[in-house]
């Protein structure tokens, strides 16, 4: 199964904000976490993740800082801001509505993960 591109794009922002709400992180780790959360089903590319992170930074939802790890290697860490938390709450409300409605239709009682959306792919 593969989740469609549109759905990946639509869920990208709450996904990234949600992961950053757990604590600051960096690109590669975010991608790993998404893959882990979805059991490898969500196919994110670097072309999706990094421009999205830059956009969220531009909108003030996240802030970034360069930290050096392992000698000369530099890593850009992202941290969620208060605005980002507010945005996450708003997105979550919307997603709850969508997921709740879908669950009503399908009379499904599966816990809240990406599984209920399986039928869309």
């Amino acid at each position, binding site marked *: 199964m593969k989740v469609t591109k549109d759905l990946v794009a639509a869920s990208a922002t709450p996904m990234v904000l949600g992961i950053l709400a757990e604590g600051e992180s960096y690109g590669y780790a975010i991608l790993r976490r998404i893959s882990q959360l979805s059991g490898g089903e969500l196919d994110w590319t*670097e*072309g999706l993740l*990094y421009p*999205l992170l830059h956009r969220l930074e*531009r909108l003030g939802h996240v802030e970034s800082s360069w930290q050096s790890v392992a000698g000369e*290697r*530099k890593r850009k860490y992202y941290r969620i801001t208060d605005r980002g938390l507010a945005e996450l709450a708003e997105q979550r409300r919307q997603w709850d509505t969508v997921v709740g409605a879908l669950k009503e239709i399908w009379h499904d009682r599966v816990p809240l993960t990406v599984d209920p959306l399986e039928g869309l792919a």
Partner: protein
Amino acid sequence: MTPHGGQEELEAQFEQWRRYVLRRRELQPSDADELEDHLRGSVDELVAAGLSPDEAFLVAVKRMGSLDELSREFAREHSERLWKQLVLTADAGGTVAGTRSRRDLWAMLGCAAGAVLSVKAPILFGLTLADDGPFYARNFTIFALPWLAAFLAWRRAARRQVIAILVALFAIGAVAANAYPLAEDSQSVVVTGIHLPIALWLVVGLAYVADDWRSSRRRMDFIRFTGEWFIYFVLMALGGGVLAAFLFNTFQAIGIVPEEFISQWLLPCGAAAAVVVAGWLVEAKQSVVENIAPVLTRLFTPLFTAALLAFLVAVAWTSHGIDVEREALILFDLLLVVVLGLLLYSLSARDPLAPPGAFDKLQLALVVSALAIDVLVLVEITGRITDDYGSTPNRAAALGENVILLVNLAWSAWLLLGFLRRRTPFAALERWQTGYLPVYAGWAWIVVLVFPPLFNYA
């Protein structure tokens, strides 16, 4: 842990990948850093899973997907990067180029401030712009251009001898503008007023080519500089005009008329500063922005060619002689200057190794038609030589210029023809134009220095 040799090889591969990434304009060094960290994370994981560094690198790069797609995604978020921007101050990176551009900025500000002070300094000696307009008109280029030359000489780290020559030439210019007893309404004042800026601009050129003044390439760079400088200056003048208009009208609305401020401070100081700022902009932007002068040249060469050919046809059709009664010669001098400019700026932007093409033919047509018109004018003038043409400084200067431009264009046409027939290399044309620059300088200095006494300060 990987063996040391494999690690070094891996670093080389990262370096190569990074260079490849940085070739994309959508991806900036900070993006490359971020993506490199991502790639390294990916490689580390694959190595931990048992792959060799080499294999891990290949797999990781492959996973990242095509760079085309990646940069397309980046471009959607960072569309501004596709527009080249002038970076005035370097980012926090503190690169060598960054410190250099910051130092340039300060030098430019210093020189611009110097130009502004020079314009206002004569006030200390009781010379105000309101009462001594002619003094300021005569000396404006002497106030502003030395500062531009100073900025360029500083940038080129000019040698002492060159600086001494520059200072001496500007001093001679100042003497020429002020020492001769020229009446305010004399022709010589006007002639000097036109030729002194040309002479001094070529002194600026000397500062520009200070590092290698014999080099034809450097002189061509100065020609490019001149075109771009002129365009930036005109743009700044337009902006200044808008600013002045707003200042005037808004202050007038509250009952204050800032006329004196605008005419005696804003405009002269702004113009003097703009002379230096334009020079700095050209220097700072030369590798960032496409040159505008050649673009305009491309647009206008066909139009001017058509206009000149139409004029020639009209002359032949009506068999009406060209009326050179009054100052018409100056008009035709200007025409030759425009044609020369069109020629120069397309030469300046041309790839010297490209084979002759249609545009070169068009240029030949332009130059030849301009020459034909000028010959008609000269024939007309020699017909009236009994009229003592050339007895005034105006006419003598105009005639001299005409001869100088005619010689330049005639030989250019010959070289162009040779180039089109693949007999002479393009470089010959370029060398001819750059070698001719001292002729303009020599003539301008003759007019400024010799003409007034020669014509009894008429």
